[in-house]
């Protein structure tokens, strides 16, 4: 158990009973509270709507399971790779300000027993989890991000994949009016990503619908996005409108653009080098020194089994 604590991403929801889970506002309140008794007293039931009372990003006590503090709300929402809005990471936040993420529907289809189109409200009824995950971008920077959402396997269980289903394909909304970047002819829009079914069913694989206990901000892929913490960030597709189960490996955007650089798997791997950028080290946003990049972004104990017997140099 001691050993596990070091390596496994323990969702905060598994430590704290869900009804006692603190909203972010309560976390901030908690900063000055020392005794356990008063701590419990502060655990009021979560209100339906949590108006941010403090400026987001003023700090929190959240850390990942390795003890590294979460990045601030401001950092997480002001530095985003979201080419549908802009190739400039800082331009995404202002450009996405008026993005309409409601109403929103997600089609779950393909090789499933129960195809269905879900509204975002339907999806928010799935068992909610809170996860503090590292996000490692292929550009060699990283953040620690407190997501809320649901495990993708919960949704797939409802859909009941057929035995022939081997992969899960995800598609982003195609709407050049809202996504000016989709007018660029240099990309095979819409953004598409994919996972092997066992990767998609893994308990770490998350569909995020919130950040810091509030709704998912537009620059981060509102209203819902994939989060696969052991893979490079571009695998975690944003603003999903379609989840389709397939028998063959689905095409993905970056793999289509430059297959020798962006493999289908794209697991974080400091030993398999990207032909252009070194993946040995990374800069954690908010830090000045580089850190060594961890195999599978530090989730190896949980996910290495998925790739047993595979040559990760070939399947990069």
């Amino acid at each position, binding site marked *: 158990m001691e050993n596990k604590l070091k390596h496994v991403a323990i969702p905060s929801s598994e430590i704290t009973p869900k009804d006692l889970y603190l909203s972010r506002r309560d976390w901030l309140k908690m900063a000055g509270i020392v005794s356990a008794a008063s701590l419990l007293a502060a655990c009021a039931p979560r209100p339906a709507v949590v108006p941010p009372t403090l400026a987001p990003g003023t700090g929190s006590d959240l850390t990942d399971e390795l003890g590294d503090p979460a*990045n601030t709300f*401001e*950092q997480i929402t*002001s*530095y985003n790779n979201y*080419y549908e809005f802009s*190739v400039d*990471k*800082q331009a995404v936040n202002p450009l996405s300000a008026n993005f309409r993420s409601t109403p929103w529907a997600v089609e779950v289809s393909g090789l499933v027993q129960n195809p269905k189109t879900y509204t975002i409200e339907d999806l928010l009824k799935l068992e909610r989890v809170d996860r503090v995950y590292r996000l490692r971008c*292929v*550009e060699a*920077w990283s953040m620690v991000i407190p997501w809320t959402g649901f495990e993708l396997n919960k949704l797939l269980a409802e859909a009941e994949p057929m035995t022939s289903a081997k992969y899960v394909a995800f598609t982003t909304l195609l709407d050049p009016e809202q996504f000016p970047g989709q007018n*660029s002819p*240099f*990309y095979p829009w819409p953004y598409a990503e994919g996972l092997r079914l066992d990767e998609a069913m893994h308990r770490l694989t998350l569909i995020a619908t919130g950040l810091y206990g509030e709704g998912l901000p537009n620059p981060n892929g509102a209203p819902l996005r994939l989060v696969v913490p052991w893979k490079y960030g571009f695998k975690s597709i944003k603003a999903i409108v379609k989840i389709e189960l397939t028998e063959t490996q689905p095409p993905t955007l*970056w793999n*289509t*653009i*430059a297959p020798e*650089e962006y493999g289908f798997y794209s697991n974080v791997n400091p030993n398999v*080098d990207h*032909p*252009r*950028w*070194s993946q*040995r*080290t990374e*800069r954690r*946003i*908010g830090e*000045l*020194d*580089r850190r060594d990049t961890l195999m599978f972004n530090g989730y190896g104990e949980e996910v290495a089994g998925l790739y047993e017997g595979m040559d990760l140099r070939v399947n990069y």
Partner: protein
Amino acid sequence: MKKEWLRVFVHMLGVLPLSLILFDALTGRLSVNPIQDIEQRLGRAALYFLVASLSVTPVYTLTGWRSVLPRRRALGLYAFLYASLHFITFAAIDYGFDIQEIGRLIVEKPFILLGLTTGLLLLPLAVTSFDYFIRTMGRKWKSLHRLVYAAGVTVIIHYAWAKKGDFFNLRGDILKPLLWGALILVLLVLRIPAVRRGVSRVRQRIIGNGLIRRFAEK
């Protein structure tokens, strides 16, 4: 004194990128990844001044405006200054003088090797930019300074390869490198003697020799 305004203007342009970076740094306007932000902005500034120095002769060819010619040296030296700051930021701040890692990166990553190549092409040009060398090297000086054309090619590939996409298949984030590359190509083509003579002749027929000069210098 009358001709000084262009010199002053070039130096104002020259310190502008650095001033903007310092201003943004002091007022907290850099991105949340400030080292990379500074590194990339310095690199882009180097590109801008390299293109500006490469455009001096074509501007003269197209307009007959002689006063731009003496400004080429300052533009080239600003390109070298920003290229140097770009490299220092990469080596010292980004990689903390980790010589071993920097060496590995240069060997392994063609785009970093091309950036270094561009810097090394500019180095002898900066060193020999003084009047003394222009006087003493004679013809050789001119040949040596043609290295800047090669730098114009390597810098674009360096820039394009630093971005996500596939420059040679026109896929991904390649729009800006493509536009800057096209501009450099035009600037190089305008130097081909036959092209240059042709453009010069057309220009003289349309606007004469001294019109722009009279307009620009009153």
